[in-house]
C-alpha cells in the first residue's frame, strides 16, 4: 500500500495542540493520510492540502473548513457505525476509515450535486408549495425527498453501547474556560465556593489559545491563571465537557468523557464566549472562505497554513490581528478589505500598515471566484460599499487569492441564558445582542456579556465569580461594574452584500441564501421565528449559531424593523448535537421482586412485569398454554400456591380506624367483628371504581387492609391525605414491602395447611371470610380465608424475611397432594371462571360499581363514603352499559380483550376478559354491553378484525354458582 499523504506543518510554536511525537494514519474517501495526535479530522485533512471536506445538505455544494469549532455542519463523516462525526472538532484516531455523509456516489463525484444547478427552480418554501399540487402526489414526493435528505445511514444492527449518567452538585458552575471563566473560577474559589469549571475543548484558555497577535501575552496569561486555579482544592476543572442544556433552577446537563452528568448548581457563571459571524457574499461558502478564528485555530493550534494567499475581509480591529497572524504563518496577505469607511487607529492597524499589507477601506468582497474542479476559490472581486451593504459600484478590482478570511463580528453564545429564561437585548452601538435580564443565580461574563478586551474579560469574570459565590451562600451580591473595554464596536452592523446571481449563503447548514430570507419577508413572514420555519434558516445541525444574526439583519432590513424588534429565535436544548445514546444512557428501571422471587426462578417461572413488580406469569418447562391449563387443573382438583406479595398491605390503626374505613370504602366496616374479613371496594369522588381488596379486623381500633398490586402506593397516599383532612385519630402504616404473602388454594388446601399449624382450621373453626393470627410453619402469620379463585383457600401474610421459608414449608407439606405453584395467568383464568372482576382490567376510568356488577359491595345507606354523593346522582338513572359474562361454543375466531361488542352500527361495549376455560371446556369471557343485552341467552356480536362473531350471554359466575367450593 502506498505511503499516506503527509505534508509537514509550520514550525513548532507557542500553544500548539498537536503532539509531534505521535504520528497517526487514517483514510478519508479511500485515500490514506498522515496526522499528528491531537489533530482534528479537518485540521489533518486541511494540513494535507485537502480542500473538499464535504457537501452541503441541499445543493451538495463543495465545502471546507469554516469555523473549526463545532459549527462546520457540512463536514460530517461516517466511521463504520459511528455517524455524523464533526470533522472540525473530532480528534483523528489511528486507523479511522472515514467517508463523507450526504453524498450520492462519492464526495468527489456527488451525483446529487446537480441540485446546485437547479437551485433557481428550488425557491424558498418550494417543498411546501410544489409537492402538495396535486395533493395526492405528496406521499410519492415525500418518499423521494426522504431518500435524498438525511445525513448518514443508521445501522440498526449496531452494537448497543451503554453511556452512563451521573449526578453531581456544586455551589458555582462556570461554563467556559476562557479568560473570563478562569477569572470567575478564581474569584469564586477564593471566596470558598465549591466550583466546577467546565471547558468543552481539551484545555483551559478559550480564545487565548489561538489569539496570536490579538493578545500577545495570551500564553503567559493562560499559564498563570491555570496554575492559580490548580492551587485551589475547591475548584474542579472538567475538560472536554460541554454543557448541553440548562433546565429550571440551574439544573444542567453536561456531557463529558464519562457520559452525561446532571449538575445541580446553586449559581452559574455563563462565560461561553461568542460565535464569530461570517460575512455574506456570493460564493462565501466555498472551500477557502473561512472565519478569522477558524484561520487562527488552524494556524496556532494545529500549525496548519490555512491558505497560500489570503484576502482578509474585516469589519473590526480584531481582523487586523488575524491578518498579522496569517502573515506570521507564512501566508501571503493579498489585502485587507475593511468594510468600514474609517479604519481604526489601534496598534494592530498600525502593525498591518507597517507590515506593508494593503488596506482597502470602505470596500467589500462582492463575490468570490470559484476555482475549477472543486478546488475552492481562485480570487475575489472587491468593490466599494456603504455601511448598509449596498455596493456603490460593482466594477471593483479582482484580487487573486485561494482563501478569504472573514472577521466581521460576533454573536454572544447566549444559549444557556436563553434556555434558563434570560433575555438578550440588541445593543445598537455594539451591533450585537447582549444579556439583559438573567434569571436568579445566573451570571454572565466575558464575550457573551459583550466584553471583548482580555483584561476587561478577566475583570468581568472576577466580578461574576464574586457575585456567584455570594449568591451561593445567600449573601448580598457585590455591586457589578462594567469594565472599561478598549474594543468599542466589535461587530459590523451589516456585513452582507447582495448579488444579482445569488449564491450568497446566510446558512451553510441548510443552504439558505439572502434572497430566501427576503422572499420569506415578502410573503409576510416578518419575525425571526416565522422566517426560521419557512426558510429553515438556523434549523440545521449548527442550529443557527453562525447564521441567525445575519438572517435577523436581512429580515430587519427587508421589513423596515430594528433588529431588536425582529428578535432572535428561542434557545432550546441542546447547545450542541447530542446523540440519543448519550441521553438514553443506561436503562434504569428497578424491578420490584417479592421475597419469594428466588423460589420462582428455581421453579422455572416465566416472569412478567406487573407495574413495577416482576411476577411469575406461569411456570415452565411446559409451553405457555399447557402450563396455564396444568396449573388451573391443579388448583381445581388438588392444590396450588401463588405468591401474592405484591398486594398492597396496610395497617389502619387508631380510635377512629373503623370510622375512617367507613368513609374510604363503599362497604360497611364498623360492624365487622374481630376475626372476620370483608371485601372492600373503593371509589373516587366521581363514583368511579378505583381499587379493591380485603379488610380484616385485628382489634377494636385496628384493621388490616389489602389493595390491588398496582394501586397500593396511590391508595396509601390518598388514605393519608383524607385522614389528615378529616382530622381523624388514625395512623396508616404501609406494610406492602415489609410483608410477603401467598395464597394456598384448592380442595386439598385445608389438609396441607393443617400439617403446618396448630390453629383450628376445621370448616367450623376457621370459616369462610375468617381472619386469624397464628403460627404457621414456625412463623407468626396473618391468615385470611378468602376465595378469589373460587376454591377453598387461605391467604397467608408474614414478615418478608420469613416468606420464602413459609413458601418452602407449604410446598413440602403439599407433596402428597401434588401441590404446584401457579402464576398470574392461571389465577386470572380461575377467577374469571368464578366471575370475579379485576379492577383495572374489567373496569376502566369511567366505571361505576353499578355498571361493574359490584352494587352489592356498596352501602348507599351509610352516612358518607367517597364517591357516594356522585353515585346518588348516577343511581336513579338507567345504566348506559353493564358488565356481563358470555360463552362461545364455536370459537374458531376468538376475540381478544378490547374487541368491541356491537349491535349494527352501535358500539355497545367491549370485551374485558376472555380465555378458554379448561374447567368448562369452552371459551368464556366478560364484556360490557347494553343493559338489555345482559339477559342470559342473548346473542351478542363481537367485532374481530372486521368480522362479526357471535357469543351467548351467560350468567356469572360460570363455575360453582352456589359458592360451595370456596365455602367448604
Amino acid at each position, binding site marked *: 500500500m502506498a505511503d499516506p499523504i503527509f505534508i509537514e506543518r509550520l514550525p513548532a510554536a507557542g500553544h500548539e495542540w498537536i503532539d509531534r511525537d505521535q504520528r497517526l494514519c487514517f483514510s478519508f474517501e479511500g485515500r490514506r493520510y498522515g496526522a499528528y495526535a491531537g489533530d482534528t479530522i479537518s485540521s489533518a485533512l486541511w494540513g494535507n492540502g485537502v480542500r473538499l471536506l464535504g457537501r452541503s445538505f441541499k445543493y451538495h455544494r463543495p465545502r471546507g473548513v469554516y469555523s473549526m469549532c463545532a459549527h462546520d455542519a457540512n463536514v460530517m463523516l461516517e466511521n463504520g457505525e459511528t455517524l455524523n462525526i464533526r470533522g472540525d472538532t473530532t480528534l483523528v484516531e489511528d486507523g479511522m476509515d472515514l467517508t463523507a455523509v450526504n453524498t450520492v456516489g462519492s464526495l468527489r463525484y456527488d451525483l446529487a450535486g446537480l441540485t446546485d444547478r437547479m437551485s433557481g427552480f428550488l425557491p424558498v418554501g418550494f417543498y411546501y408549495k410544489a409537492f402538495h399540487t396535486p395533493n395526492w402526489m405528496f406521499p410519492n414526493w415525500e418518499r423521494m425527498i426522504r431518500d435524498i435528505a438525511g445525513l448518514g445511514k443508521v445501522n440498526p444492527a449496531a452494537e448497543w453501547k451503554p453511556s452512563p449518567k451521573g449526578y453531581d452538585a456544586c455551589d458555582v458552575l462556570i461554563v467556559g474556560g476562557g479568560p473570563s471563566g478562569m477569572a470567575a473560577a478564581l474569584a469564586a474559589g477564593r471566596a470558598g465556593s465549591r466550583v466546577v469549571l467546565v471547558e468543552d475543548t481539551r484545555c483551559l484558555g478559550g480564545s487565548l489559545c489561538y489569539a496570536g497577535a490579538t493578545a500577545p501575552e495570551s500564553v503567559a496569561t493562560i499559564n498563570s491563571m491555570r496554575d492559580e486555579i490548580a492551587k485551589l482544592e475547591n475548584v474542579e476543572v472538567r475538560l472536554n465537557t460541554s454543557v448541553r442544556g440548562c*433546565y*429550571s*433552577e440551574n*439544573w444542567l446537563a453536561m456531557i463529558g468523557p464519562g457520559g452525561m452528568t*446532571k449538575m*445541580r448548581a446553586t449559581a452559574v457563571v455563563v462565560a461561553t464566549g461568542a460565535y464569530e459571524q461570517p460575512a455574506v457574499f456570493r460564493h462565501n461558502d466555498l472551500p477557502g472562505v473561512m472565519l478569522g478564528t477558524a484561520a487562527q485555530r488552524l494556524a496556532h493550534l494545529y500549525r496548519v497554513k490555512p491558505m497560500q494567499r489570503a484576502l482578509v475581509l474585516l469589519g473590526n480591529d480584531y481582523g487586523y490581528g488575524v491578518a498579522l497572524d496569517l502573515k506570521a504563518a507564512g501566508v501571503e496577505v493579498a489585502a485587507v478589505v475593511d468594510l468600514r469607511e474609517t479604519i481604526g487607529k489601534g496598534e494592530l492597524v498600525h502593525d498591518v500598515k507597517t507590515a506593508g499589507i494593503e488596506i482597502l477601506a470602505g470596500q467589500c468582497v462582492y463575490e468570490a471566484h470559484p476555482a475549477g474542479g472543486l478546488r475552492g476559490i481562485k480570487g475575489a472581486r472587491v468593490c466599494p460599499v456603504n455601511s448598509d451593504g449596498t455596493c456603490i459600484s460593482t466594477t471593483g478590482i479582482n484580487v487573486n487569492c485561494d482563501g478569504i478570511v472573514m472577521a466581521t463580528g460576533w454573536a454572544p453564545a447566549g444559549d444557556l441564558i436563553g434556555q434558563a429564561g434570560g433575555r438578550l437585548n440588541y445593543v445598537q452601538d455594539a451591533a450585537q445582542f447582549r444579556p439583559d435580564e438573567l434569571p436568579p443565580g445566573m451570571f454572565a461574563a466575558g464575550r457573551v456579556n459583550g466584553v471583548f478586551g482580555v483584561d476587561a474579560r478577566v475583570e468581568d469574570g472576577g466580578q461574576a465569580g464574586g457575585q456567584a459565590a455570594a449568591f451561593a451562600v445567600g449573601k448580598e451580591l457585590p455591586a457589578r461594574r462594567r469594565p472599561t473595554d478598549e474594543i468599542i464596536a466589535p461587530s459590523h452592523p451589516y456585513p452582507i452584500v447582495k448579488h444579482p446571481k445569488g449564491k450568497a449563503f446566510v446558512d451553510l447548514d441548510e443552504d439558505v441564501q439572502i434572497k430566501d430570507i427576503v422572499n420569506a419577508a415578502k410573503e409576510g413572514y416578518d419575525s425571526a421565528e416565522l422566517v426560521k420555519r419557512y426558510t429553515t434558516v438556523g434549523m440545521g445541525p449548527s442550529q443557527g449559531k453562525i447564521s441567525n444574526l445575519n438572517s435577523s439583519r436581512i429580515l430587519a432590513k427587508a421589513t423596515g424593523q430594528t433588529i431588536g424588534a425582529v428578535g432572535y429565535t428561542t434557545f432550546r436544548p441542546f447547545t450542541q448535537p447530542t446523540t440519543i445514546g448519550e441521553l438514553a444512557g443506561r436503562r434504569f428501571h428497578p424491578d420490584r421482586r417479592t421475597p419469594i422471587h428466588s423460589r420462582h426462578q428455581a421453579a422455572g417461572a416465566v416472569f412478567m412485569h406487573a407495574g413495577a413488580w416482576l411476577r411469575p406469569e406461569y411456570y415452565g418447562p411446559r409451553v405457555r398454554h399447557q402450563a396455564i391449563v396444568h396449573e388451573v387443573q391443579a388448583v381445581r382438583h388438588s392444590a396450588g400456591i401463588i405468591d401474592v406479595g405484591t398486594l398492597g398491605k396496610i395497617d389502619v390503626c387508631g380510635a377512629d380506624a373503623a370510622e375512617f374505613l367507613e368513609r374510604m370504602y363503599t362497604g360497611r366496616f364498623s360492624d365487622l367483628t374481630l376475626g372476620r374479613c370483608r371485601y372492600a371496594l373503593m371509589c373516587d*369522588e*366521581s363514583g368511579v371504581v378505583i381499587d379493591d381488596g380485603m379488610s380484616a379486623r385485628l382489634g377494636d381500633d385496628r384493621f388490616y387492609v389489602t389493595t390491588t398490586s398496582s394501586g397500593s*402506593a396511590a391508595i*396509601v*397516599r390518598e388514605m*393519608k*391525605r383524607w385522614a*389528615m*383532612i378529616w*382530622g381523624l385519630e388514625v395512623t396508616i402504616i*404501609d406494610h406492602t414491602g415489609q410483608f410477603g404473602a401467598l395464597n394456598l388454594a384448592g380442595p386439598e388446601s385445608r389438609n396441607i395447611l393443617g400439617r403446618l399449624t396448630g390453629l383450628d382450621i376445621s370448616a367450623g373453626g376457621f370459616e369462610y371470610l375468617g381472619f386469624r393470627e397464628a403460627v404457621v410453619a414456625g412463623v407468626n402469620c396473618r391468615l385470611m380465608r378468602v376465595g378469589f379463585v373460587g376454591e377453598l383457600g387461605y391467604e397467608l401474610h408474614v414478615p418478608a424475611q420469613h416468606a420464602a421459608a413459609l413458601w418452602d414449608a407449604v410446598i413440602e407439606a403439599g407433596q402428597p397432594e401434588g401441590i404446584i405453584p401457579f402464576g398470574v395467568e392461571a389465577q386470572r383464568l380461575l377467577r374469571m371462571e368464578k366471575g370475579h372482576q379485576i379492577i383495572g382490567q374489567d373496569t376502566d376510568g369511567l366505571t361505576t360499581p353499578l355498571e361493574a356488577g359490584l352494587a352489592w359491595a356498596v352501602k348507599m345507606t351509610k352516612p*358518607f363514603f367517597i364517591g*357516594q*354523593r*356522585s353515585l346518588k*346522582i348516577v343511581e336513579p338513572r338507567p345504566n348506559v352499559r353493564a358488565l356481563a359474562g358470555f360463552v362461545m361454543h364455536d370459537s374458531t375466531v376468538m376475540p381478544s380483550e378490547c374487541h368491541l361488542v356491537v349491535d349494527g352500527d352501535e358500539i355497545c361495549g367491549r370485551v374485558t376478559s376472555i380465555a378458554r376455560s379448561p374447567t368448562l371446556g369452552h371459551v368464556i369471557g366478560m364484556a360490557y354491553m347494553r343493559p338489555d343485552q345482559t339477559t342470559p341467552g342473548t346473542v351478542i356480536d363481537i367485532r374481530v378484525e372486521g368480522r362479526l362473531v357471535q357469543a351467548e350471554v351467560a350468567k356469572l359466575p360460570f363455575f360453582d354458582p352456589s359458592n360451595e367450593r370456596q365455602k367448604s
Partner: protein
Amino acid sequence: MKIMTCPVNGPRPLQEFVYGGDVTEMPCPDQVTDEQWAAYVFERDGAPGPHKEWWYHAPSGVWFIAERDTGTDEISNTYLYNG
C-alpha cells in the same frame, strides 16, 4: 429539575414529590345541589396564575400545601395543612 421545599424535610428535588391536585374544600354533600356537587368534583380553574395545590413528599409520606404560580412555575410558599 426543580427543588421544592417540604415543610418537614426541607428542600428536596421535585422528583420526590407527587402532585395531588388543586386544594378544593369538599362542600357538605347533603347541602349542595347535584350541579354544585358536579362542579366540586369536575370543575377546576386551570388558568395560569397563583394556585394552592396539594403536594405529597413520597419518601416520607408528608402531605402539604404549596402556593404556586402555574404561569411562572414559582413556588412562593409551602406549609402543612391545618384543618
